[in-house]
């Protein structure tokens, strides 16, 4: 049965309720809720890494390159190529790679998007 203006109760209810959006980029940043296990920016723990290159082999986006430093082979991560699939973290045998909840991977300079 058609009822014109059916939503009028709902819209006035929403007039009084709190807004659904948050003023994200400038204020209310603490209201951004991220669950455990969110796939954000990669955090790399150099001390744990054994240089097995597994992450390099499984990365579907070629976002990982292997370089050599004083302790031997190690990966570096190009976050601007990363697709946040977390395959590297999954295959890492020593859990040296973790994905943090930092999701704001925006930069003017590509170099700041390098995880070492």
């Amino acid at each position, binding site marked *: 049965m058609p009822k014109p203006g059916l939503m009028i109760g709902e*819209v006035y209810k929403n007039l009084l309720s709190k807004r659904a959006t948050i003023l994200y980029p400038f204020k209310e940043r603490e209201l951004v809720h991220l669950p455990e296990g969110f796939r954000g920016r990669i955090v790399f723990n150099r001390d744990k890494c054994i240089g097995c290159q597994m992450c390099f082999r499984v990365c579907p986006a070629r976002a990982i390159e292997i370089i050599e430093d004083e302790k031997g082979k190690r990966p570096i991560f190009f976050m601007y190529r990363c697709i946040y699939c977390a395959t590297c973290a999954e295959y890492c045998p020593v859990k040296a790679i973790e994905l943090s909840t930092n999701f704001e991977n925006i930069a003017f300079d590509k170099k700041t998007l390098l995880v070492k």
Partner: protein
Amino acid sequence: MIEVLYKIIQMILFPGFAFIGVLSLLYEWIDRKFYAKLQNRVGPLYAGPHGILQPLADFIKLLSKEDIIPEGADKFLFTLTPIFFFAVNLLLTLLLPICGTSGVISFTGDLIFFVALLTITSILVYTAGVASVNRFATIGAERAVLQFIGYEIPFMLSIVSVVISSGSLTIKNIVESQSNMWYILGPNLLAFAVYVIAVQAELERIPFDIPEAEQEIVAGWLVEYSGKKLALFRLGRDIETLLLCGLGATLFLGGPLGPVIPGLEIILHTLYFTIKSIIILLILTTLKAIFARIRVDQMLVFSWKYLIPLSLISVLIVRVVF
């Protein structure tokens, strides 16, 4: 001499163009903010406290944008239409009784003048669409004319009800005749409902934003306008909103009338007028929030099947009562 000077000040500053400009931008802000609240959004936020300066910021931004005239367009009409649109609306505001029972200009039968000039704005919408020689604009212009056929008659008939009740065609007399009782409280309630719906169509707001339906024909008759011309159209539209809300307040809600403290008449009258017209604006915004856009043929059917008979009934009732 002093009288002429006083008239000019009235015309330019208060309650003339400057005041109207500020008020219309305020109305746009209220419209946007209230619409956003109804939809559980934030609305304008950053320009000024609670984004109150956002319409002004938009206006200034548009003024600074590049002004493009399409190659195939009728340059003369294309340029002139926004100016006319703005000017006609601005001129009409002088007839509104804002700070007293009569407007800046007031003469016998000025309601006819008012309604006639309002019709011109609808025709200007058509010329704007046709002059820009764009497919979407042409379709928008076509739709604007079709819609015009739909809403204009109920709009006028609803005004006729008020005219019959007051027995006068002069805005000043209509306002003064409401000093005892507003017309909305009497048999004119039906006419008020018809008036609000017709105004919604005249202002091209959901559910009657058919001529500029964004999802269908991009922006309809406005599609080719940019820069200063678009700014003029936007401001003209804001003023028209104020105009029609104000006219509704004048005809049905007693306009600037209300309890007055001696010495503060001008301020209180203005306040009453603003509050009453904002109430109408809020009704319009609520209507915008609870409906989907209908098709132009459905709009015509709705208008001729329901709106016009209703307005005729309203005229009949008023005629019997008064």
